């Protein structure tokens, strides 16, 4: 508690010094102006799980979770990637069916809220949406298991608007190793490389969040387009295998990619992670409590998991992690990979948010904090979204080139 007050005090003093005029919400006029003039892109949100619940309405401000249209407006999200996700253990045609249904759920939300949302598949469409005062909704498939080793399914997803695919989730799939599973493929299999090349051709971004380090390097070698880490943080700050090493971030940057910082407390804070590790019973208790409250309702599990974790923090069983940790990761990534290679991949509605970043409405605080850290406005703009938009444009150009090449090859063959 004391720490919190001191922290807030320092924050306010710093803001007054640096930014001058300040509103009640702790946001300077300069930060507000900058934030609300930018296209803020968030590359990972698990809100889709909530959309599967017919009672949930994206248009109404919800007291739970982190994302809905009112709070996206408040936090000025300009583009959001809705994650298509199910556990790695769901495989085969069932996984395909469930993924398709989730894609439909997102598309239906866009159709139901035509004044607020528009489905986007390119950087240009995101910019158009922004001009029209609408939020661009995009689709990302979180886990290669959902294609059931079938490039036709990958192409169907692309045709339905999917613009990135995370090569694995927390378990290995049939053709790529995960960072949180025992390696069985030594990275990407030959088919895995074929998947990456087909993604390049389709203009679907190759997302290396979740994958093993070897898979990352295999993908980096194979992909003709820059990679993204749609929601990964820095391993140098928090030693989770899911986070990226400095070297990985450097190599990602050399090839033009971006790392989109994940706000999950377990990936942000070493202290949190250590305390979790030191007390494995705690996670089991949380899991048991989640199951008790939610059975197998994924959306409920994600929301309740976050809520219970907060309860444990309040009880002192887990450390409190402040949103300023996000800034620390951004700053580290910028120092290591460069200003052109960092962005935002919250993991909202799918992870445990730090204090001060409970939902999308709080996003302007990131702008404020970066300005206070001395970041130039142009650089803040890059982090908020322009870096991701650049990668999307590059990926699209490479897709066009590859399609042109393919057609040339075929006409030669004929």
């Amino acid at each position, binding site marked *: 508690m004391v720490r919190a007050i001191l922290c807030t005090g320092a924050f306010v003093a710093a803001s007054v010094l640096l930014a001058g005029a300040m509103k009640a919400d702790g946001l300077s006029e300069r930060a507000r102006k900058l934030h609300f003039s930018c296209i803020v892109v968030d590359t990972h949100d698990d809100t889709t799980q909530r959309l599967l619940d017919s009672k949930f309405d994206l248009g109404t401000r919800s007291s739970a979770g982190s994302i809905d249209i009112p709070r996206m407006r408040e936090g000025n999200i300009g583009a959001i990637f809705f994650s298509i996700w199910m556990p790695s253990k769901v495989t085969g045609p069932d996984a395909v069916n469930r993924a*398709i249904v989730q*894609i439909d759920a997102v598309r239906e939300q866009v159709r139901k809220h035509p004044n607020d949302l528009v489905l986007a598949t390119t950087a240009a469409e995101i910019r158009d949406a922004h001009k029209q005062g609408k939020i661009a909704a995009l689709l990302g498939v979180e886990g290669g298991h959902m294609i059931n080793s079938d490039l*036709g*399914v990958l192409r169907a997803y692309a045709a339905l608007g999917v613009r990135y695919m995370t090569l694995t989730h927390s378990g290995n799939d049939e053709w790529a190793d995960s960072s949180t599973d025992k390696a069985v493929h030594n990275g990407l299999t030959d088919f895995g490389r074929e998947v990456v090349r087909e993604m390049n051709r389709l203009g679907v971004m190759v997302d290396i969040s979740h994958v093993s380090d070897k898979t990352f390097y295999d993908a980096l070698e194979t992909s003709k387009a820059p990679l993204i880490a749609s929601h990964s943080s820095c391993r140098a700050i928090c030693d989770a295998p899911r986070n990226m090493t400095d070297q990985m971030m450097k190599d990602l940057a050399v090839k033009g990619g971006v790392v989109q910082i994940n706000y999950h407390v377990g990936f942000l804070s070493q202290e949190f992670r250590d305390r979790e590790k030191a007390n494995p019973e705690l996670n089991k208790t949380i899991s048991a409590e989640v199951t008790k409250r939610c059975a197998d309702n994924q959306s409920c599990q994600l929301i309740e998991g976050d809520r219970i974790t907060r309860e444990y923090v309040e009880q002192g069983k887990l450390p409190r992690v402040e949103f300023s940790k996000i800034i620390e990761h951004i700053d580290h990534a910028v120092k290591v990979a460069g200003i052109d290679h960092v962005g935002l991949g919250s993991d909202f509605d799918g992870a445990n948010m730090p204090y001060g970043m409970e939902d999308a409405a709080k996003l302007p605080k990131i702008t404020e904090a970066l300005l206070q850290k001395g970041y130039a406005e142009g650089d803040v703009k890059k982090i908020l979204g322009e870096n991701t938009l650049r990668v999307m444009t590059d990926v699209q150009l490479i897709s066009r080139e590859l399609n042109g090449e393919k057609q040339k090859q075929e006409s030669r063959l004929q």
Partner: protein
Amino acid sequence: MRRMVVFLCLISCSCAGLFFVRCTSADDIADRARQLHFSSIVLDTHADTPQRLLTGTFDLGKRDAEGHVDIPRMREGGLNAQFFSIFITGKTLGPPAIQQALDQIDLVRQNIQQHGKDLALATTAEEIRRAHAQGQIAILMGIEGGHMIGNDIRMVRVYSALGVRYMTLAHFYNDEWADSSTDKPAHNGLTHFGKEVVREMNRQGMLVDISHVSDKAFYDALEVSKVPLIASHSSVRAISNHPRNMSDDMIKVLAAKGGVIQINYERNYLSEEYRTAFAAVAGDVSRMEEKFKKECGDDNVCIGKAEIRLEKELTGAGKLPHVSWEKIIEHIDHVVRLVGPDHVGLGSDFDGADMPDGLEDCSKLPKITEALLRKGYSEEDIRKILGGNILRVMEQSEKISKEMQAAQ
């Protein structure tokens, strides 16, 4: 009054006939037919060519010695708009049916991309016209069998988003929500959910195809659908009494609501004589999948070839009668006499059925135009039959879909 009209008509017809004989030779008619055919949008609503694409060895761009459809023969036959049928056996249900259907849709889309100079994916009447104006063949997609939605209405939207523009409510077997004409009724037509599917199809601009469905399912669909129905590949029951064909009453009520019946060229559906003989020696045509299961498994190209082989054998042995392509004209004419020229079109069933003598493949299509012209059909009416009628229904579907989506 009615007699008067008939009388006048007779006079004008014979006048036209006289004029015809005096001023045009047979070759003139052939020329006129060619000109008419090759300037028209010829839209066929059902070909099973994707089954051949699945073999992995068939190249749509090359003239093939087998099958009925490829780009060179489409060019030759002036076939410039074709619905490719997405089909898997009605025995496969649930998520596997969905994945297989997605794969076939992808296969069609990939082939269109590979042959980008010749083919263009079309999902609207406007896109068909644009492809035609650019000298490209418009390829459309239809799903043949409601089992491919995996009993999940959301799949209607997904397929629509992927470019599918009609769905046949059932195939040879009942699915979870619609009875087939060649299965034992289980749902008394359409279930409540089946009616919801029809409404969602209307909303998504996906034409409701009643080929294959039971009579009751047809009448249920007719009642529910806000958009005229199509029979993508069905013939006339009054000529060949197969349950898969449409009765005169069905054709009348279909037409009254603006729909179209697209004539199927399968021998069994064209000729009663053939159908009864075939049933006696080989069983019903709807059970070929079961008949050749051991030999072919789920390979539909194999099943199709086996059926054709059997037909050739039996016809050669004199156990089956020959069926001439002119039967197609008889079916078209029957519909036109029954409900006028606005409600009939072409739904060959190429690459999925046994074609009659003289219409061995799509390169032979100009013969249909010529035969209709010789029968005295006006050029305007022939254009309707060749494609105009189905284009009209597509436009209605697009309009109603927009209205329904706006009203939501």
